[in-house]
């Protein structure tokens, strides 16, 4: 093995031999070399007649025993932190490569953060409902979820037949927001539990179901539809068709599978949303 003949280099090698993490060993060696260089320069400045070799020898002498310094440095040095740091950098690199790879194979890169694609549509259901006309019922905890009804509206609907007004009735719409404690527990777009087992009753005693009809998928007319969503929450837009015109409130009820909740939702007096239905057109689609 080739021996390093330079005394300074030998001293540095001995002093840093106990440092196991290579980048640290290199950095400490550089620091000690700089310190030795400073000391050598000081000696040469103070004693202008001193040669460089003499100044280096004196500086080395003042630095102390390389073996002892090496043992001290090895004692205080923590290599695992260095290894962990290196591993973390490799992980960041791998993660960056995976994310770039994912960009190529998935097109729903941001979907899990939530969706506000149809904000304008859902908001239009409730446009015009004034604060003084409606106040939300208290939120409830159901299992790990927090449920709240955040808005409600009364609609006027008309069935048209060949452009002629055939029937007029009132409906109610409300937003049920379900907030999960964690993003991975966010409720799905379709919730058979709610569709099948949640019911409603209005203040006149009339009862309603949220089960979708056989043609609900064709006409995108399910009584419970997924509205906006965020990282941990989702809005379900509830639609109750043909409520009693004199109904003042609607009670949402769920009692199934060991869980239950009930919301009494006031329905604003004023109709704020109008929709007409061209039954003739729908029938043509069906047939």
């Amino acid at each position, binding site marked *: 093995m080739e021996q390093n003949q330079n005394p300074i280099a030998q001293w540095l090698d001995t002093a840093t031999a106990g440092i196991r993490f290579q980048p640290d060993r290199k950095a400490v060696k550089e620091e000690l070399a700089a310190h030795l260089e400073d000391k050598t320069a000081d000696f040469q400045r103070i004693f202008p007649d001193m040669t460089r070799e003499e100044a280096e020898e004196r500086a080395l002498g003042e630095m102390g025993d390389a073996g002892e310094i090496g043992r001290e440095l090895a004692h205080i040095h923590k290599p695992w932190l260095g290894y962990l740091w290196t591993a*973390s950098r490799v992980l960041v690199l791998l993660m960056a490569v995976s994310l770039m790879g994912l960009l190529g194979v998935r097109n729903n890169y941001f979907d899990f953060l939530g969706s506000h694609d149809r904000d304008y549509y859902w908001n239009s259901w409730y446009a015009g409902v004034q604060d003084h006309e409606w106040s939300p019922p208290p939120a409830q905890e159901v299992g790990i979820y927090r449920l709240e009804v955040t808005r409600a509206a009364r609609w006027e609907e008309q069935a048209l037949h060949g452009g002629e007004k055939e029937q007029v009735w009132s409906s109610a719409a409300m937003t049920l927001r379900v907030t999960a404690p964690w993003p*991975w527990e966010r409720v799905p777009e379709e919730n058979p539990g709610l569709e099948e087992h949640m019911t409603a009753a209005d203040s006149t005693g009339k009862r309603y179901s949220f089960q979708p009809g056989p043609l609900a998928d064709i006409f995108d007319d399910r009584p419970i539809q997924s509205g906006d969503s965020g990282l941990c929450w989702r809005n379900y837009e509830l639609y109750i068709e043909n409520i009693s015109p004199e109904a003042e409130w609607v009670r949402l009820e769920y009692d199934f599978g060991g869980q239950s909740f009930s919301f009494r939702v006031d329905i604003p007096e004023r109709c704020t949303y109008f929709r007409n239905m061209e039954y003739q057109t729908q029938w043509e689609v069906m047939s």
Partner: protein
Amino acid sequence: MSRWNELTQKAEGRGRKLLRRLRKLWTPTRGQRTAFNLLLVVLGAVWVWGVYAYPLTPEQTFRRLERQNFLEPSQIICHQKRDLGWSEEARLTRSIYVGLGEDWAVTAYVDGRGSYTYWKQISDNSYSMVNLPDSWLNAWALPPGPALIPVGFPVRGWNKDSGMGWGLAAVRLPEEAETGELTLIREEERWSAPGEKLDNGAMYFWCQDPGIGPRGYGSSKNLPGRPYWPDGLGIEWAKGLSYELALWDKNGGALPTLTGQVLEG
């Protein structure tokens, strides 16, 4: 050395020291950098997990489905995992669960490969495109006494050569029932299926769908991947059908035959 040079050197020395001190102050320590890197990795991993709809193990996914549908945890009485080796066409048969609660039952399939779009049969010649989540759960209110629940997802038969069909779970059967044979009745038609005993007085039955055939979950040649069963029974076929369930005990003694209707929802 002139006084001027001396002062300049001193000033440079002080400047260097100040710069070194500031650099030390503003440079994060190795521990901080490691923590930051690990935080980036965790955020990235959660991001990727989220893009893939937070997959968990099949049982954890089933439990999460129960929570998301506002149900207490049920007792799992049936878990079928049948990986058929086909890619898209077989995805609905991945992992099927039947759980039993106090007065309810749940049937669920768990896939874990992201959502999937397919054509749902609405009526004889009518289909609607449906975005199917990668996991799905149906909850059934149980009447008092025995009940027959349609599993509601196409399920592969018992061996690799059997075709696709539909599962049904009978629950709350007499404790002594060891074997059974189910007959479903639709006017003049009859389907029979032997039962597989499950835990908690339950049995599982599988009826082959002749319309789907041995090649599996039917897909039209013109529309690859479109589950389309021109002669198939369809997902809803068993709901509301009358049934007869013959039961035997472990000695082969016949128990009273049960009759009723498959749950409709």
